[in-house]
């Protein structure tokens, strides 16, 4: 008998624990390349949109990609149609996906975040909102997700604006992600997700100038998996809300490692670039891993005794 992969995450029923990492699978563009098969066989149990911002953004100048040992750096720069463009053009298109929809949002100010959360939260098509806090607060200059205080202050503004689950996407570029996770939980976040990419740069091998148009970017892929595992481990130990783990997941065994450390769900990011259907393979490998261990369901997510 096949193990039961289903779970409930922030009140949302999911068929299995594998999501996509925000910004690593564009279901609309993928539909142009692969047609209806993308929707029919979407390998994710929930679909997380690329991060949207209040205003339309073109993104960073090219080049935007740099391959590294066992990973890649991206400096994409959040190109998106802006809140209105997303609601009018993309959201209606995403509704055809057979899974719950989570919209990722980011703004350079608290009022900007507030507008995003409020407007997105009003839409019935949206099951959850992921709050990407890797952006500097234009007023304080501080990067929200690097500071527990900034994160809590942001949550205090946006939490009252919606009943939808709020998932805070943590940044790994700080000394204590667990402290930020605690602040998020204290501020009423329903879950945290981690890790986002690590700040990195690469040089043009010929000129020795920084290769990326934006000078530096974020590292993802297997190179960062062991860092992600450690941050997930630390965060799980300190919050009682669910944790969505990601960073370099390539195989079912990798996914199981995050789940075994207490993550409730996982996300496949960069691996989808190597194979658009990678998450489907990850899922079937996860099933095999469970079967070979004689398990008929997922490890139960760790709930620490010292919850906030």
């Amino acid at each position, binding site marked *: 008998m096949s193990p039961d992969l289903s779970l409930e995450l922030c009140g949302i029923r999911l068929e299995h624990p594998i999501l996509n990492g925000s910004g690593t699978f564009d279901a609309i*563009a*993928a539909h142009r390349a692969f047609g209806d098969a993308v929707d029919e066989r979407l390998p994710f149990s929930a679909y997380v949109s690329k991060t949207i911002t209040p205003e339309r953004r073109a993104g960073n100048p090219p080049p935007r990609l740099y391959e590294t*040992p*066992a990973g890649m750096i991206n400096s994409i720069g959040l*190109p998106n149609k802006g809140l209105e463009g997303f609601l009018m053009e993309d959201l209606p298109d995403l509704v055809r996906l057979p899974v719950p929809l989570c919209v990722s949002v980011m703004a350079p100010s608290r009022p900007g975040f507030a507008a995003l959360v409020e407007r997105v939260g009003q839409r019935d098509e949206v099951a959850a909102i992921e709050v990407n806090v890797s952006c500097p607060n234009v007023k304080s200059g501080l990067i929200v997700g690097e500071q527990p205080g900034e994160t809590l202050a942001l949550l205090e503004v946006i939490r009252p604006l919606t009943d939808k689950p709020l998932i805070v996407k943590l940044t790994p570029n700080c000394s204590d992600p667990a402290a930020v996770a605690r602040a998020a939980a204290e501020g009423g976040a329903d879950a945290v997700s981690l890790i986002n990419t690590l700040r990195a740069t690469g040089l043009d091998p010929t000129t020795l100038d920084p*290769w990326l148009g934006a000078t530096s970017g974020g590292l993802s892929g297997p190179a960062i998996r062991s860092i992600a595992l450690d941050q997930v481990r630390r965060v799980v130990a300190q919050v009682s809300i669910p944790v969505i783990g990601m960073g370099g997941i390539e195989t079912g065994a990798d996914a199981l490692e995050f789940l075994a450390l207490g993550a409730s769900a996982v996300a496949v990011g960069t691996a*989808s670039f190597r194979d658009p259907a990678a998450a489907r393979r990850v899922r079937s490998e996860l099933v095999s891993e469970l079967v070979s261990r004689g398990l008929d369901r997922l490890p139960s997510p760790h709930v620490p005794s010292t919850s906030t």
Partner: protein
Amino acid sequence: MTDRVLAPFGRRRCAVVANEATGGYRLISALDEGGPPPRAGQFYMLAGAGWGGTGGRPYLPRAFSVAEAEAGADGVRLDFLCEAVGPGTGVLAALAVGDALHLTGPLGRPFSTPCELAPGAAGAILVGGGIGIAPLAILRRALAERGVPQRVLLGFRDRAHSGGLDLFRCSEVRTASEDGHTGHQGYVTDLLAVLLEGDDADSAAVYACGPAAMLEAVRELCAARDVPAELAMETPMACGFGSCFGCAVPLAGGGYMRLCVDGPVVRAEEIETAMVAGSGH
């Protein structure tokens, strides 16, 4: 516009059926049992088995224009012309017959027909440079099958950076080379300039693929003479299916296109420049 052929969702494992040297390049053939025949101008994301290698790269797959495709009883034989310039192309160039080739595709927007490009365009001028001749081979055949008259102009830097001419065997090809080892000594765009000064300018559409500087020269020549042109461009790609936003090419009107889904074949007037940072060798 010629419709793109959709790819099966997910990458698939094919077997390498041939891998031969042609000049300084390799002609790698794989038997694709799971995908449809591609259109000229489309590409595939290719990878060997697994990933990693000396230095931990390649990790990502690499984009390759399909150079020729032939549907048979067992599947579609896909030909790729490969110039080994780094770890990714190096792994592919070293594949042996029987080895696994993982591919996703066909991807991207194919070439249009001349009359799709301009009502008056009856003939085609194909301009290829270096490894960029690859997609012109399948385009030449596709156009020939439709009876479109065409001229093929191919340029190479030097002997080490040339090859694949056999793919064009049944057509008249004019060549140029910077070192003079074949044809006109100079740039392939010199040949194009001469052609466009003749009658062809009024009735032809230009199709070009090659180094960024060559494409930019083609773009300027065609713009100056109002000749419709399509360029098959290159830029580093991580995914090939519109998901990473890494393949940004500046649009004439501002902003960027994603070359993998909005290209790789673009109308010359769509883009701000063909000199996209990061796309050179």
